[in-house]
């Protein structure tokens, strides 16, 4: 058994929603570029460690997020954060050897996939399946929350007044996409 493989092909990354696009009624649906994602589990005492590795402090308030460059860090639970590197550079590598003793970093780059929902009527489309109040007062730019769309779980993240990022598990993305298409048509 050789250390280097004789076959030099490199596997291709194929996202579940590759090639899809939909727009109607002032809303567009676009699969997000395949980025990298980490779940960070860090309790209060590990926040300093997380800051050292990330280069910025974790958000501390529920339903909020912090952005630095291409890296978005979403508060998901008291000790749970979803870090998304939208351009897909080596985020997991940074944490690979992170001291497990202090915090846990789990690569979920491929577990989730994301759909960008944008346009002035985006809220109406999302509210077809999401029971949360998505008005700017209740769900301002930067707000992030684990919630549902129809029968699927999603993490909803508002990136601007008229743009949301819908993160869902890979195998749910077909349902989430079709639900959003149906919702957009119905707005």
């Amino acid at each position: 058994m050789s250390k280097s493989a004789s076959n030099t092909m490199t596997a291709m990354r194929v996202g579940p929603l590759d090639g899809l696009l939909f727009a109607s009624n002032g809303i567009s649906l676009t699969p997000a570029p395949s980025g990298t994602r980490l779940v960070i589990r860090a309790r209060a005492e590990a926040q300093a460690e997380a800051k050292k590795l990330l280069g910025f402090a974790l958000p501390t308030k529920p339903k909020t997020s912090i952005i630095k460059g291409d890296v978005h860090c979403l508060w998901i639970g008291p000790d749970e954060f979803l870090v998304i590197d939208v351009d897909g550079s080596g985020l997991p590598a940074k944490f690979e050897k992170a001291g497990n003793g202090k915090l846990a970093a789990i690569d979920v780059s491929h577990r989730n996939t994301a759909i960008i929902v944008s346009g002035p009527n985006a809220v109406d489309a999302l509210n077809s399946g999401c029971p949360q109040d998505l008005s700017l007062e209740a769900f301002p730019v930067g707000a992030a929350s684990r919630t549902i769309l129809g029968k699927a779980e999603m993490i909803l993240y508002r990136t601007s007044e008229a743009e949301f990022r819908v993160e869902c598990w890979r195998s749910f993305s077909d349902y989430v996409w079709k639900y959003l298409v149906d919702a957009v048509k119905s707005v």
Partner: protein
Amino acid sequence: MTITTPNTGTNRVARKGRLSPSKTVTFTFDGKQLNAMHGDTLASALIANGIHLAGRSFKYHRPRGILGSGAEEPNALMDIARDKIRTQPNVRATTQEVFDGLIAKTQNYYPSITFDVGGINNVLAPFFSAGFYYKTFMWPKQAWKKLYEPVIREAAGLGHAPKEADPDRYANRFAHCDVMIVGGGAAGLMAAKTAAKAGKKVIICDENPEFGGWLLAEGEASIDGIPAAEWAAKTVADLVAMANVKLLSRTTAFGYYAQNMVTLAERITDHLALPDADAPRERLWQVRAKNVILATGAIERHLVFADNDRPGIMLSSAARMYLNHYGVAVGQNVGVYTACDSAWHAALELQEAGVKVVAIIDMRSNPDEQLIARAKALGIPVRTGSAVTKTSGKLRVKSMTVEPIGDHLTEKFEIDALIMSGGWTPSVHLFSQSRGKLKFDEPNGRFIPDIHVEQCVSIGSCNGTNEIDAALAEAISASNAVTGKKAGKAPKTMGFASMEGHLIGSAKGAGPDDHVMAFIDYQNDVCAKDVRLAVREGMHSIEHVKRYTTTGMATDQGKMSNMHGLAIAAEALGKEIPAVGLTTFRSPYTPVTFGTIVNHAKGDLFDVTRRTPMHGWAEDQGAVFEDVGNWKRAWYFPKAGEDMHAAVSRECKTTREVAGIFDASTLGKIEVVGPDAVKFMELMYTNPWEKLKVGMCRYGIMCREDGFVYDDGVVGRLAEDRFHVTTTTGGAPRVLIMMEDYLQTEFPDWKVSLTSTSEQWAVIGVQGPKAREIISSLVEDIDLSADAMPHMAIREGKICGVPTRLMRVSFTGELGFEINVPADYGQSVWEAIWDIGSPMGMVPYGTEAMHVMRAEKGFIIVGQDTDGTVTPYDAAVGWAVGKKKTDFVGIRGLKRPDLIAEGRRQLVGLRTKNSKVVLEEGAQIVVDPNQPIPMKMIGFVTSSYWSETLGHSIAMALVENGFNLKGETLYVPMPNETIAVEVCDPIFYDKEGARLNV
């Protein structure tokens, strides 16, 4: 050249109504083409065309007319269609707007509405008393299923649902607001304006196409110096211009649930001739409101007298609405029968509009002097202290017979319409649904809201406030209570009609006879006598009376009938009305289509369908899929001409001889990380984990507290403090939930976290003697040799240039690997392996072959070979319970006396004496097949397959004392034969594991 406008009906009244004759539509009614004005309801269009006969009644098939002008309509339920598929029964003609091409049909008759065979029920009415079905169809019991039920079902019900799938789309919307206002009449609009001006987020809905409520029925009344209907339109225009207000017309608030959740059904296309193909037909709104203002108005009651259901007999409020809004006269010789001032105003307006009012009959001996004077000035005969005791006319009312209440002198009037009013019933349906408590307002004979349970308030006539100025003031203060401000001033009003006077219960001539047909509930065909009969037969609770007589049930929800039914029951019982009580109002207020309730969740969106990254490849290969939870899994891969049996046999055989490739991506995966990870694993699984070396895997069993097997799976230790845990496909969510439950509630201070990685990894199983050879050229940084990577090892490295967690594990008993790669690479890596393996003879295999091969090895499947009452010991995996462990979930449970007692069912193998016979899974097992029935069953078959590899059938079973019965013969009695089986070890193939360790 003259332009002729289509004739929209002979009963149109000049200079009355708000519809424009310049815009007309054409529709068909029972096959006949008719014209209407744009904005007409089907009911107003029919009455304009002189048609009152609108259907046959539910039980007695009596000809029925149009009674009301809105959602309260109990009679005029029709089948409405726009094409062959888009058809809906039981639509109220009073709420259906006409459009070009609408097809309306009346219901519940054969062969025609004017001659109906079912009318025999009317003649036989004395036999169809209340509780008829309960009494008549009691015996014989068997006849229910074969005779009574099918016949009754066929005869019962109104209309027919279309059999085709509904082609329309439906939508859903969740919404939040500061104030949800239900009802867009005077009070609702006033409240909306006040709250909106203060900056509150307002949603206001109304079931009608136009806001305004009963203001639209007003002829002369004005608000703020302009006609009432104009004030409504102006207020709506103001609200539309405000960004913080959402107005929903054609939208019925039909349900009120906990914590101010109000559900609305918005009808979007039912009034359009050519709706946009993409537009949803209806939308469900689920509104969470900080405050709810109920301005649901009131519904006029009819009067209960003999034959009060002939076509042409209707509510006075409806007559006013038809006259003042639609410009339609309900007849040319109109009789008026009332106990309330409202009908007087209708009469005066009709007479002023040129319709002849034959007489006003008022039950009250001293109605308002001014009204009498006005009627007399217009030349209308008036009879006070009198009652209508009889009517005539088969398909349309022809006459009314009038008697003074205390006398028997009769007087007969020829009429073609009779309008009536028994006063107004506040619409407290939603208030009642919100669990609000009502109180009885004795002087006015009505129930009104008393204690509000939710954050809501009732205003206007639904609160018993009928007087317009008071209602508007109430609206303003309700909104001010929400906004905390003191804003708004009630506008000046003029010319509103009084709504004083009422009667609940039966009038003269509606009893106490047993045969008079004096209807209290038109929709369910319930008469005053039925309620009395129910009381006589022992129904003393209003809830029992309701069910015995069916009054106030079904789609009608007692909008007009409740108070009459209650008053008659109270009288018969000799009790006060509050002591008898009111029945509960149920959601929905008016019928809601299933489409609206289901909305997006149909077709592909009925439920989530989960597919693996390699699904498309399997599909291309012609795989047959099976549903496992929400997943689609490749079941088997038939080649041309192969059935399932042949395909599975080939897949098993080839995998054992060469290699097979299997998609195991659906396995649940949980990453357990942290300094306390191993401590946590020790707790959750029965196995010991402390000594598991990094880079090695172990088969783990998880129990519940009661000691029964909950899940199983292979767990790999990636680092001292990091485990890659796998679960069964179906068990993934519940295992994570159970783990989180213990972690969060019992051991919150433990430093360990759980993250689902089920979907992070695509899992490619490569199994068989050639497995290593097939993958080796693709793998980097991992030594795959038997010495370096023995069975149950896990390594991290690369395959096809991407990261992998490579496990050497086997669920087939062959040399095998499970290759975990990040999911988006799954398909690409799979294809690379396939390109190498396929020329060597590797086949893809599905879940069925996987099941067969694992059974040949005696590996259990949790949920198939266990059923929630099986311990690890019972399942013959007791070796996986750490003997020296002092704690794990289930350790106490496993010591329960009944779990250690003799005679428990234990997992064994079975071989049929005739090796070709494959047992049925679930079949019962007995010791002596000749014992009398019922036999004592000592176990059952859990897994059973044909093994091509072994050339005989194999089975696993849970059998009492099974471990001690090896070699014994037992029997499986089946309907046509009794199958003899021998108890054996459940490991049928390669007991020594020689094939694994290569």
